């Protein structure tokens, strides 16, 4: 694989709340995510992790402020261009029809297709290559509706990678998975990082964040988000404050382990 030349993401003075009367989720929030780095968004439920991902994607519009991808405002980038730069791996996706896995991940090619054209042999090969890369080529003829939770998550990642994105947004990528699948997906994300893809992931899982994220944004309900280097930002004090719970961090075999509660 060729190394990616990922763009820089600049969040500039972002303000957003669900309704005018609701509490403000982001108030003049600014941050810069460097190309090819992995950023984690952590915070309690309802602190705006998914919303921030959706704002970066351009799916939600901020009240004020800007999100710039290599200095281009996200809402000015044409839809199909945006689909080539940025892909989303949702936490859950409602599937209404029993597509075969190969056909399903092939939908990731759509930003590259002209309005009236169909995926070509090259597109199909590309999709197959991604399935191989994620070691799920054996699923390609299976129905997406009949997959296990771990397989489904891998297929959603595959569809996003078929978009060949420079930026990958992941909404709680390890949630609801068993230890085997968590580790498998974490290894995949680490290898994507090595290829130079910028990863932005929301997580409830500081252990995982410590292993992968260069930068972390702490989303503290009702207070200003803080962003900084993961190793400095994630410590027992900041986590205690974030979740309102006693937190200790131990080190076992050179890996940090979080101990929750008393």
């Amino acid at each position, binding site marked *: 694989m060729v190394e990616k030349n990922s763009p820089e993401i600049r969040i500039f003075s972002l303000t957003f709340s669900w309704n005018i009367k609701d509490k403000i989720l982001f108030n003049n929030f600014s941050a810069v995510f460097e190309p090819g780095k992995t950023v984690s968004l952590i915070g309690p439920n309802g602190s705006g992790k998914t919303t921030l991902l*959706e704002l970066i*994607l*351009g*799916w939600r519009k901020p009240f004020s402020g800007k999100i710039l991808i290599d200095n281009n405002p996200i809402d000015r980038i044409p*839809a*199909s*261009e*945006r*689909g*080539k730069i*940025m*892909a*989303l791996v*949702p936490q859950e*996706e*409602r*599937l*209404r*029809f*029993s*597509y*075969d896995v190969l*056909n399903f991940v092939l*939908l*990731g090619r*759509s*930003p590259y*297709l002209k*309005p*009236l*054209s*169909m*995926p070509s042999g090259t597109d199909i090969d590309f999709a197959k290559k991604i399935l191989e890369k994620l070691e799920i080529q054996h699923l390609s003829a299976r*129905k997406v*509706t*009949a997959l296990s939770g771990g397989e489904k998550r891998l297929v959603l990642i595959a569809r*996003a990678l078929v*978009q060949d994105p420079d930026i990958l*947004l992941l909404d709680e990528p390890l949630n609801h998975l068993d230890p085997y699948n968590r580790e498998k997906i974490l290894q995949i994300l680490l290898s994507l990082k090595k290829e130079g893809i910028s990863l932005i992931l929301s997580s409830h899982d500081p252990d995982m964040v410590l292993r992968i994220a260069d930068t972390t944004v702490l989303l503290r309900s009702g207070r200003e988000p803080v962003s900084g280097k993961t190793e400095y930002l994630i410590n027992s004090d900041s986590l205690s404050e974030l979740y309102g719970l006693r937190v200790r961090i131990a080190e076992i075999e050179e890996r940090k382990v979080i101990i929750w509660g008393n």
Partner: protein
Amino acid sequence: MTVNNKTGYLLTVLLLLTLLFLSVLWGRYPKPGFSSLHVLLNDRLAETLLWNVRIPRIITALLLGASLAASGTVLQTVLGNPLVEPGLLGVTQGAAFGAGLAILLSGKNYWNIYFSAIFFGLLGITFTWILAKRIKYGGGILRLILSGIIISALFSSGLGILKYVADPRSVLPEITFWLMGSLSSAGWDTLKVTFPLVTLPLLILFSVRWKINLLSLDDRTVFALGSNPSRQRMFLIFLSVIAVASITAVVGIISWVGLLIPQISRKITGADTAKSLPFSALTGAVFVLFCDNISRGAFSGEIPLGLITSLTGAVFFAVLMSSGVKDHLKW
């Protein structure tokens, strides 16, 4: 059921061609049942009937089946609801009301009937869509169906009022017969108008058949895949409604085809609309042509086509829903 796609297509095309040929020979003149081509072409009246009645009717039947089934596939996919058919979303009842209104106000002027049917068909689905967003009961699929039932009921009671005020000697029979759903009024004159209004949207749908898949996903996912979900969805719905409403204007209400045929097609070709859409159109054409042959030739009098499609459709659907491998869809 897994059938090789090519075999499935080939079989359906073969079935269609055979059926087409048999349909030409089938009828009540010069004798009930099949007549040979030789007899048909040597009898003056039979030849005239063949060219001016039977053939345009066969073409209309094919268009009818193709458009109902294709738009059923499109609507089911883009609304993410495999139980949707044009008739459940207020399109058919809206179009029926529009046609009834046009007959009442201006008699048998085809252009007026078409325009009015298409207009009210679109109005029907728009109302259904708006109401579905406001209903506060159940999930998206249930809301859409509920809303469709309400809007359809409104239009059908509106139609009832039209029938009530219509002149029972001239206008009422016209509306009533039209409503039963029949191809008996199809001819070259109606086909001149219907043909482009049905084939054009169908051709456009055919050429975007792969992209339709995309719209079966969540709006946010469609957006993340580099498309504009609401604009594309509206465009596809609009095309389907134009096709259905224009054919409904000629033949009246034909139910079940738009629900049943897409379901069968998906079982055979898989969910991918690049394959299921053309297959559905083809199967729909075969099914309606077959039903219309029963309608016009199996009994001494003509039985309304709508009756036959609902009868066979309902039975087929019951069999389909209770057979085969269990689907893992949850909705």
